[in-house]
């Protein structure tokens, strides 16, 4: 099998309205590559939500990025103080990638 290296998979559930700000924060942490995944509905401590399209304000997305451990740590440190106030849900895990130098 081709050789792979380990990188961090950072998955952040965020209000779509705040996504542009998260993209900025990621760029500040040196992360340029990301993918946004649509989300349908969910529930948490704030009750249920669903994207009603009428008021875009309740739509959420998943911001997914593969990054080096160092960049991921920088991003997490930058976001940590606001995770709760901004209603974000952040998870980190290890993944293997082919040609890891681009992350």
């Amino acid at each position: 099998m081709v050789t792979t290296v380990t990188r961090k998979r950072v998955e952040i559930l965020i209000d779509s309205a705040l996504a542009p700000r998260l993209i900025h924060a990621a760029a500040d942490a040196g992360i340029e590559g990301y993918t946004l995944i649509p989300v349908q509905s969910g529930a948490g401590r704030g009750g249920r939500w669903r994207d009603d399209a009428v008021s875009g304000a309740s739509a959420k997305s998943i911001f997914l990025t593969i990054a080096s451990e160092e960049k991921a740590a920088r991003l997490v440190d930058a976001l940590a103080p606001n995770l709760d106030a901004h209603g974000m849900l952040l998870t980190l895990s290890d993944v293997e990638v082919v040609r890891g130098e681009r992350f």
Partner: protein
Amino acid sequence: MDIVIATLSSPVILFFILGLAAAFARSDLTIPEAVAKGLSIYLMIAIGMKGGVAVSKSGFTPDLAAAAAAGVALSFALPYLAFGLLTRFGRIDRVNAGAVAAHYGSVSVVTFVTAVEILDRQGLGPAGYMVAVLALMETPAIISGLLLARRGERGDGDRAGGLWHEVLLNASVVLLIGSFVIGFAAGAEGFAATAPLFDGLFRGLLCLFLLDMGLVAGRRLIETRALTARAAALAILIPLVNGAIGTLTGSAIGLDTGSAAALGILAASASYIAVPAAMRLALPKADPGLSLAMSLGVTFPFNIIAGIPLFTMLAQRIG
């Protein structure tokens, strides 16, 4: 009383009630998001163009200038009143009260559209320029709301850029102003070729959209955890106060009955599109669940069912 009967027997309102009822009965009926968003774009373009065409006929009149100035002033001023009620009677903290107040100073496009629909059937159709007033009232309240929420705090200069951009170029402002200008440029003749879409289908598509609004408002009300009894009461009291102020202002500056009623309904209505998005950016710590439960869950149905006939009757009395 005609206006009450006209309101409650209009298919437009009946579909709204169907949506509310389906949501309360927890039916799984939903309008796909993309369709709902498409309908809302359609409504803004249609009403923008019709307003522009009307102004291309009537020209820019002193009435127009007076209504525009009154609209902007109301949008700036009304949040201060609402903020007082929210913090004192509502016991809501400063940041959340500022966010909610901004919603009530701004306006709801669909409430306006529904009102125009109902006023039209009564021979009280408001002037075409009221669409421009609608567009102008969307954003000043955001400034007032932020000033209130941040009173005594230093500004967040760094982020302001993105916010102003969002406020001035948000989708509904661009659509309303853009299609107003296109309607104005095209005039009645240019509009004719698009009339089967933007005029012919208007009422039917408004029925569909209000069905969705009923579902969305009803579900928001059921699923909210943020709405206290006091907040719910304010979500009816504030539009009553704002609507009365708006209608009286309209009458005082000499608008015709229909336009004065429309100004009242604009003042009474609360934003659930432009303002929530701006507040999410500017005051991320404010709870969007609270302001949407109030504006979308309570005030919107209240205005559609009771506010429109109420302020119309008020405008008729004092007109």
